[in-house]
């Protein structure tokens, strides 16, 4: 701000300056006027003194005349007259011209100039009189020398004799008469002087009084002037003071009014600002360069940050307790960036990391309340430089939650659509059955995990049990083509395999298992939810159809009815009762067919599966038969059936024949046969693999007969597959078959002819119900 750039103070500065100038003028006038007083007083005194001078001149002239008369010395009288006349003459000239004169004490007196007409007239009159006087004085004053002539008197007569004769004591003789004094006579000049004196005294007798009066009058006039000046000064003083007071009052009133106006305006603005800050929904505050919050802020800030006190608060302290450290650091870096002088604000705004920041407030009841805040920063410039950051904060929790829900919903919908597309290919009864069985299996896994374990042996004992359950889930998922479940189960198996290979085991090693188990639970829940929705959809369609609406969504209907798509008709099909399990075995056939086809496809093979008697599987064996057949069918396709080229060389049909037969044998129980026309068991290969995997030693291998060799395939960890895939490789499948059969109290028989066939024959004991029947 320049020195003359007074802004809003311009008025008051000018007013006060004017007032001071006015006072200065008054004082100057006062001083000037007061300075004349002393001159006036001196003038009056001077005039009073001069008033006696005409008398002095007259007296001096009379005295001179008398001396001349008496023949006395006239020099001193003449000098007195000259001095008086000269003084009066000078004084009168000074009065007429207003000059300066030195008084008898040597002080210089400035004579007041007589400018008034009356004074001028008097002075003129006085001058005139004095001029006449002076004309008569001049010959006298010019006189010098002696006015007398000296003449010796005549000798005196002889003195008379002494009267002695006349008495004894005659008086001494009379003294001789004193010599006669010389006679003093006026010289002609003396006579002329005497004549001039006579003329002067006569004139002076009448004039000196007038001259004295003139001076006295002038003195009175000067005195009167002085009084007038005093009065004028008083008026000036009083008037000046009054004017000053008026001016001061006016200034006071003007500025009081202005101040009131400004105050009212400021109050109104403040109130408006306060109203805005109180009402606005956004949190508003300013940040200074030290990142301290300004004193003014919106009330919404209290609610947003759940605090009342913001005094001396810095931005990092504001955020410190409600955001993770990483977020805080990012926020502070960003704000620091905003303070840079050469910053493109628009560009920087696009990278604002706080435009949707998750904050957590302590909940008095425990835990946290999570909110989402949106921070917006605007750079505030003052006089060309950055002075503050204006921060706007909004609680956008609802918006973010809605957006996230929408996103999650979309993602979920997408995932469900993928899942839907997968499960639409699965026969519904099979899917329901799978979900039930898988749930049981996974709960079994959890139960196994839950069994207390402290020793390593206890931990190790869990692995095989878990393995079997997971493998069964994987097998059935694979059979149904539920790739997502199969992959998860496969990953679970990999973790188990990793544990098997460890030297020591503890509970910590099982942590990955529970995580994967949780994932499987979650995924199966999604599949179940999807199935449930499909059922709901079916019921909705059925309801509409009953009401006479158009036939639609037959695919869903047929899928739920378990019909083959090739048999789709436009017939209205009553909705099946999904609670029943009558279709479970039919579902198994379809599952096995799908499994065989899928595995064959992945192995570039062809296979024809024939199922028989599966509808006769008792309920108590249903799960086990399903798991067993799944394993055996998969093994048959992977290991037994050859590729079409190889089969052609062996004069076999391109498609391998695979048969699954379940036959009741009365009180002898049941017989399950799974047979294929593939390459049969390769005994030498089985021995090699068993030796490679450390199941037997080479020496033992050499001693094994064919039956013992075939039995090796039921050993845990045996597999002739070259690599681990989701279809084969870990050697868990046949072990699972052996365990399942053993758990049911059955037996497994195996027959095989190299290059011709493999046949698994499983006897299961009669169930209680069958025995009772």
């Amino acid at each position, binding site marked *: 701000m320049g020195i003359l750039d007074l802004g809003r103070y311009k008025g008051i500065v000018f007013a006060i300056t004017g007032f001071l100038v006015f006072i200065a003028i008054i004082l100057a006038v006062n001083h000037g006027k007061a300075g004349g007083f002393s001159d006036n007083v001196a003038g009056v005194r001077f005039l009073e003194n001069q008033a006696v001078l005409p008398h002095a001149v007259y007296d001096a002239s009379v005295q001179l005349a008398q001396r001349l008369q008496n023949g006395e010395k006239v020099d001193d009288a003449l000098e007195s007259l000259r001095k008086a006349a000269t003084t009066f003459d000078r004084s009168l000239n000074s009065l007429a011209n207003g000059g300066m004169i030195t008084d008898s004490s040597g002080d210089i007196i400035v004579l007041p100039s007589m400018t008034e007409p009356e004074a001028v007239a008097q002075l003129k009159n006085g001058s005139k009189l004095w001029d006449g006087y002076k004309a008569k004085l001049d010959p006298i004053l010019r006189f010098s020398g002696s006015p007398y002539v000296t003449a010796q008197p005549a000798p005196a007569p002889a003195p008379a004799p002494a009267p002695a004769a006349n008495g004894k004591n005659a008086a001494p003789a009379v003294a001789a008469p004193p010599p006669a004094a010389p006679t003093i006579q006026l010289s002609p000049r003396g006579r002329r002087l005497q004549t001039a004196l006579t003329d002067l005294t006569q004139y002076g007798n009448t004039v000196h009084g007038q001259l004295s009066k003139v001076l006295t009058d002038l003195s009175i006039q000067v005195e009167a002037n002085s009084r007038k000046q005093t009065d004028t000064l008083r008026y000036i003083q009083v008037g000046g003071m009054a004017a000053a007071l008026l001016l001061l009052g006016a200034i006071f009133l003007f500025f009081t009014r202005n101040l009131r106006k400004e105050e009212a305006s400021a109050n109104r603005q403040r109130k408006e600002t306060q109203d805005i800050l109180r009402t606005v929904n956004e949190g508003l505050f300013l940040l200074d360069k030290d990142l301290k919050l300004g004193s003014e802020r919106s009330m919404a800030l209290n609610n947003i940050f759940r605090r009342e006190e913001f005094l001396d608060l810095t931005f990092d302290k504001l955020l410190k307790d409600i955001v993770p450290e990483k977020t805080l650091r990012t926020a502070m870096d960003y704000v620091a960036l905003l303070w840079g002088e050469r910053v493109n604000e628009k560009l920087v705004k696009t990278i604002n990391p706080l435009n949707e920041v998750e904050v957590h407030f302590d909940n008095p009841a425990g835990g946290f309340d999570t909110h989402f805040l949106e921070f917006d920063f605007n750079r505030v410039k003052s006089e060309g430089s950055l002075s503050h950051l204006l921060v706007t904060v909004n609680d956008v929790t609802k918006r973010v939650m809605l957006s996230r829900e929408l996103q999650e919903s979309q993602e979920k919908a997408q995932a469900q659509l993928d899942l839907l597309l997968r499960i639409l290919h699965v026969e519904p009864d099979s899917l329901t059955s799978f979900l039930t069985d898988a749930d049981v299996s996974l709960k079994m896994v959890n139960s196994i995990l839950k069994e207390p374990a402290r020793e390593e042996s206890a931990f190790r004992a869990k692995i095989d049990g878990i393995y079997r359950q997971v493998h069964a889930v994987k097998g059935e998922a694979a059979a149904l083509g539920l790739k997502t479940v199969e992959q998860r189960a496969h990953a679970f198996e990999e973790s188990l395999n990793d544990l098997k290979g460890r030297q020591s085991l503890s*509970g910590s090693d099982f942590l990955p298992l*529970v995580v994967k188990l949780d994932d499987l639970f979650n995924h199966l829940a999604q599949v179940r939810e999807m199935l449930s929705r499909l059922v709901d959809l079916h019921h909705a369609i059925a309801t509409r159809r009953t009401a006479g609406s158009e036939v639609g969504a037959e695919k869903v209907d047929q899928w739920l009815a378990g019909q083959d798509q090739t048999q789709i008709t436009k017939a209205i099909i009553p909705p099946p009762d999904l609670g029943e399990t009558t279709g479970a075995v039919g579902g198994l056939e379809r599952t096995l067919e799908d499994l065989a086809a899928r595995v064959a496809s992945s192995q570039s093979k062809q296979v024809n599966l024939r199922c028989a008697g599966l509808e006769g599987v008792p309920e108590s064996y249903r799960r086990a038969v399903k798991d067993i057949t799944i394993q055996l069918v998969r093994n048959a396709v992977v290991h037994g059936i050859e590729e079409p080229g190889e089969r052609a060389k062996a004069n076999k049909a391109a498609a391998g024949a695979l048969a699954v037969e379940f036959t009741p044998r009365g009180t002898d129980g049941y017989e399950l046969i799974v047979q294929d026309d593939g390459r049969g068991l390769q005994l030498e290969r089985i021995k090699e693999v068993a030796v490679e995997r450390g199941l037997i030693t080479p020496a033992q291998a050499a001693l094994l007969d064919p039956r013992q060799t075939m039995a090796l395939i039921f050993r845990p960890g045996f597999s002739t597959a070259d690599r681990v895939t989701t279809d084969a490789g870990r050697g868990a499948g046949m072990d699972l078959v052996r365990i399942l059969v053993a758990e049911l109290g059955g037996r497994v028989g195996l027959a095989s002819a190299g290059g011709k066939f493999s046949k698994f024959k499983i006897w299961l004991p009669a169930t209680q119900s069958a025995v009772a029947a």
Partner: protein
Amino acid sequence: MMTKVELETFVEGTTHYFATAANQPASVGSPYIVQEGKPTIQEFTGMISIAGKRRGIVYFTASRPMLTVMLMRMGETELTQENMCDLVGEVANTISGNARRDFGKDFMISVPTVVAGEPEKIVTPDNIRSFVIPINWRSHSAQLVVCLE
């Protein structure tokens, strides 16, 4: 989805406490999942709440006999309820410290709270499975429960 690393962090926090403060290491039992209902809650529970990348609670719950022995091992003569509360609180604090160290940048972790009895005060998020990790120490068994979304 819960990750193995997250679980390990909580478990390490707990076992670290036993190794350093209780003068005898604890072993980790076989972990399992609680799907329905509340996980085990014993007489004393130290709990922390977590928000941020994950949301929920983690608590350590132990029986009075176990805490009594722990206090004795630690040279504490006053086997009061208050000291037992302090003990589970310290375990929870150690878990919290470990979690802060490993996930501090992403998580908000509350100060520990202690509950003696009163299982209703421990509120787990709805529809979330809890991971229960038994912490075996001497002949006793406490539980570390992780229930996070």
